[in-house]
């Protein structure tokens, strides 16, 4: 998958925007293809769900909005609830499997990839903050949207100084993950 | 609307608290400023994912409602068991 519309959604503070940035920057700069990222601010200023729309293509992108998502990465149940209907048939759903329970709204032919990312980072690093990188790692591994080295470079230029190493490690954790909580397609 | 009360009605206790769980945002002000140390932040979460206070030591609560005064979210209230002191 080299062209895709991606929706990322979660709570404020979960690193939704950073995820979009890392992906978009990897594509735009480190693969010199094209990408856009639009973050939608919640209706109220404070503490609400937040989402990002990332488009990836080999040509410049005219219309920067997700109309039908090819990939939906959900970090929270509320985010899942809000955007699941946007996911297209045959798309990919990547979700935090400890926080979200996919239901019958998942369209046909969708690959469901559950990742217990928070648990994984807590086990590995003793903190929950890098869990978005685990999710991205698995997204990249599962879809081939962008190359892992490009993403790693992107992480280096995107995350705060001093956290690079851990973020990269978290990405690897996700990328290497062999057995995500995968549910057979089309169920 | 009061999701949770503890100690209410029991005449042996001087006070109790009323908590509207869905409003709580887990700031712990109630617990921190309870003069008797009656409250504790629990592991229980509400739907929004916030940890809730509980009246861990009902016998300590005197219903002074300081917890209620400090709550930014109108989620908790202390009540005295002797109605004549109820404000």
């Amino acid at each position, binding site marked *: 998958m080299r062209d895709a519309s991606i929706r990322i959604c979660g709570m404020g503070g979960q690193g939704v925007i950073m995820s*979009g*940035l890392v992906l*978009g*920057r990897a594509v*735009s*700069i480190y693969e*010199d293809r*094209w*990408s*856009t*990222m*639009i*973050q939608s*601010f*919640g*209706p109220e*200023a404070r503490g609400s769900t937040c989402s990002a729309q990332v488009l990836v293509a080999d040509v410049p*992108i*005219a*219309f*920067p*909005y997700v*109309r039908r998502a090819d990939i939906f990465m959900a970090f929270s149940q509320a985010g899942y609830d809000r955007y699941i209907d946007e996911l297209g048939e045959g798309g990919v759903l990547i979700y935090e499997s400890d926080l979200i329970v996919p239901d019958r709204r998942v369209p046909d032919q969708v690959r469901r990839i559950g990742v217990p990312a928070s648990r994984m980072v807590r086990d590995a690093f003793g903190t929950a903050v890098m869990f978005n990188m685990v999710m991205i790692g698995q997204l990249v591994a599962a879809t081939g949207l962008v190359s892992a080295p490009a993403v790693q470079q992107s992480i280096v230029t995107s995350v705060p100084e001093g956290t690079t190493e851990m973020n990269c490690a978290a990405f690897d954790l996700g990328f290497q993950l062999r057995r995500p909580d995968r549910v057979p397609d089309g169920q | 609307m009061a999701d949770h009360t503890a100690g209410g009605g029991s005449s042996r206790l001087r006070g109790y608290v009323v908590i509207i769980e869905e409003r709580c945002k887990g700031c712990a002000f109630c617990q921190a400023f309870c003069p008797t140390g009656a409250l504790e932040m629990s592991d229980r979460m509400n739907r929004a994912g916030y940890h809730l206070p509980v009246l861990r030591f009902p016998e300590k609560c005197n219903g002074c409602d300081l917890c209620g005064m400090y709550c930014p979210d109108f989620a908790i209230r202390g009540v005295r068991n002797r109605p004549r002191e109820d404000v």
Partner: protein
Amino acid sequence: MLRGETVLRSGKHFMDGNEACAEGAIAAGCRFVSGYPITPSTEIVEHLSRRFPEIGGMFLQMEDELSASICFQGAVWAGVKGMTVTSGPGFSLMMEHIGFAAMTETPSVFVNVQRAGPSTGLPTAPAQQDVMQARWGSHGDYGIIALSPASPQECHDLIITCFNYAETYRCPVLFMMDETVGHMHGKVTIPSMEDIHVVERRISTRSPSDYAPFRVVEGDVPEMTRAGAGHRIHMTGLTHDERGYPDMTTAAQESLVRRLCGKVNNHVKEISMMESRHVEGSDVVVISYGISAQIAGHAVDAVRAAGIRAGQVRLISLWPFDDEAIRNIARSTRHIIVLEMNLGQMVREVERAVRGIVPVHAVGNAGGRVIAPDCVVEKIREVLR
């Protein structure tokens, strides 16, 4: 003050329009910004507050938009390039000082990252509802230039043009972004300094006795000076003569105000920028600007794929409005659709310019979200039915 390469972040970036605008301003030589926070424009000044101390610029957060919109003009008269940044409600508060900049011929850039109004409206949502305000929002007759970027890259590139126009025409230049381009990340290439065309401030070298700050020597724009250059100038928002002295006669009013309007409106051809494709011999042309133009492009591609002869015009400059160019477009097509994120603003200008040559249709909304390409496709089909 550092100049040139040392300050530029030349190279490829993945940044949003607000940041790109800030970087573009730096590239254009802007070194003084006075602002007041307001969503969705604040990231521009936040970025500058971080960047400026490292490159010899200064960002000043003022107490309100009234001060923000004139403080930088003081810096401009000191010889510096400056601008202010705001959104809807703040833009409304800046109206008096847009007129002041026009009257005093202060090279000045006002950035408005448009959000949905009226009033506080939807502070975090996009709109293109301030484009008529940009032209008419201050009292009196005056001339301004307004540009509208459609992508983060253009936020960078066009703000440089804004500064160049400000220097060339000594007038307020309004950069009419919208929340979507402001908050949208995309690939932005910042060229190296030698690939950026920057019009530098030209300070008159005339002797004080030979200089008057509002005397036109060539063309219709007077030579600029700066405080401390020895010219001992006076400037005022009152009607004034060439030396800047108040002149309360209608003769002075006529010649000054006509010149202020004329130096912009008589140069439509030099100032105006638009892109068009597939216009000649089309059945319908969609005219649009800013982020809406991206949508229009999407829709036009879609219907062309379905065999409809649709064309597109993207206005890059909004003001001065190029009546003639629009009229020519009308002569090359059968229908015009104007797409904008408002309840009908620039469409009125198009209607006026078109003089009934072809029907003009509007597609718009009350702001708050971009219009779906389907609506445009639908409209195209409808008018051709």
